[in-house]
């Protein structure tokens, strides 16, 4: 989880990623941010988040995103 939080903080140092649950709904993250996050996750975790997983519920919080990474790691 710490690695993921570091990736997110690298994009927006001013956002409280540990507690924010509306990263997409409140437009904290835009499509450009999402692409950067996906490519950094690929490097850090060696997990590919394909387009079908790019939906608000998976990116609204760091927790949801981390669960997705875990799920994809299990599948891969």
């Amino acid at each position, binding site marked *: 989880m710490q690695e993921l939080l570091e990736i997110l903080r690298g994009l927006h140092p001013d956002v409280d990623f540990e507690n924010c649950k509306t990263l997409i709904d409140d437009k904290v993250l835009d499509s450009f941010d999402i*692409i950067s996050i996906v*490519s950094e996750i*690929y490097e850090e975790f060696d997990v590919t*988040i394909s387009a079908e997983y*790019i*939906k608000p519920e998976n990116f609204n919080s760091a927790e949801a995103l981390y669960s997705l990474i875990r799920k994809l790691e299990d599948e891969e």
Partner: protein
Amino acid sequence: MLFTSYEFVAFLFLVLVLYYVLPGRFQWQFLLLAGYLFYFAAGESYLIYILTTTVTVWFAACRIEKVREGQTKYLKEHKERLGKEEKKLYKSRMKAKQWRWLLVMLLLNLGILAVLKYSNFVIVNINRVIGAAGGGREFSLWNLVLPMGISFYTFQALGYLIDVYRGTVKAEKNLFKFALFVSFFPQLVQGPISRFGDLSATLFESHPFRARTVCFGMQRVLWGYFKKLVIADRMLVGVNAIIGDTDTYGGAYVFVGMLFYALELYADFTGGIDITIGMAEAMGIHVTENFNRPFFSKSIKEYWRRWHITMGTWFTDYIFYPISVCKPMLKVSKFTRAHFGERIGKRVPVYLSSFAVWLATGIWHGAGWNFVAWGLGNWIIIMISQELEPLYERFHAKFPVEGRAPWKVFQILRTILLMSCLRMFDCYRDVPLTFRMFGSMFTGWDFSIFWDGSLYGIGLGFQDYMVLLAGTALLIAVSCIQRRGKVREMIAEKPYPVRFVIWYGLFLAVLVFGAYGAGYDASQFIYNQF
């Protein structure tokens, strides 16, 4: 049968009456029939294309669903026997099967669209190359018809197929229901590009007659006609005069034409969408909103989140994300990070995928280099503003103007001007000419046209300008009120005489100042051609 024709108004009236007279369980079948009649009236030969898309996409979606159901069943039955690796292998085999169905249908349907829409553009360019290379035998153009709304229904159907492939919606087993989703007549002409999950929620249900629903829907239709007939079609006269005679109308006229075209396009397209959503609403069917007051946007990026929303989200979900997060792109990103540093590596997927999206958006809008230039112009401006972010941050740290009203007004005006400049590619439809006319705004500027009566020479009289001024003021006022809530609901709470004056006033305005009163011919909606 244009939305603005008498025939269409009669058709809509008849459809609404029969829709509510019929028992609820037959309503969707009736809408399917109405959709095909509407499409048949637009052109008999169009039917074959919409039928092909409907049947092929429906069939492929059912096959994909069947493969998925088979996979679930197989994995359940062999849960104990299969190891992790075997399960993984089986799943990837099934996914490949589904992918083949998707790929074949994408190629077939996009192929039909490409041939009908772009083959002559390709031929013209091949002939140009042949001519430039010293001549020879040139290819003759193909005599093809472009079915009404083909880009809209093709994208809508393919969006559904991709959603089924991704497992985000279940395949519709009933061919006729799916046919209605593709051919729902209010949105057949110019969108919005609905998602199956959204539209199907109310499309196939029975809807008992409710006076308030019909009334609200027809009010929105009326507002759409006001925008189209009173503002857009009147504005069109001035725009056509300016772009039709570029030798006479340079300099300040170009600036006037540019702003007129921006307003005309807005009134035309949003008016058409109001008519679409209003018609559906009158039948109890919810169609996704396509605009969210785009001219109040503070940046181009925001503007594109608020203009033609369903097209934007379509390109984002089905082109931008798949390209930017595909394995080869991630590898390219990794490579550039390793060799050119973090800063460039981060940008590569974003820049390449957004380039693809804007190129596709430009081409989607029309077969011409002007549309390509328009799309790439948007891309360049968005990328420049992305790169200037650190500069903006430094500026705002030094000058704390962010959030203040004058700064917001500046941002809004800047976005309107930038968008209007880009729209010139669409307006003049010729790239070198657009650049020449854009340049003339700075070299041949003559302020006097604003007070010496020259602007009456573009086909618009004093009364027209007054109507346009009042109409535009009303548009802005309504947009401002919309920030506080739904305008029609606010009006519905007013006493009867106030409601009467508002809605009959609007109705009379359409009759008197619209295409019927001022001697104009109602023109086709601009987005019909897409």
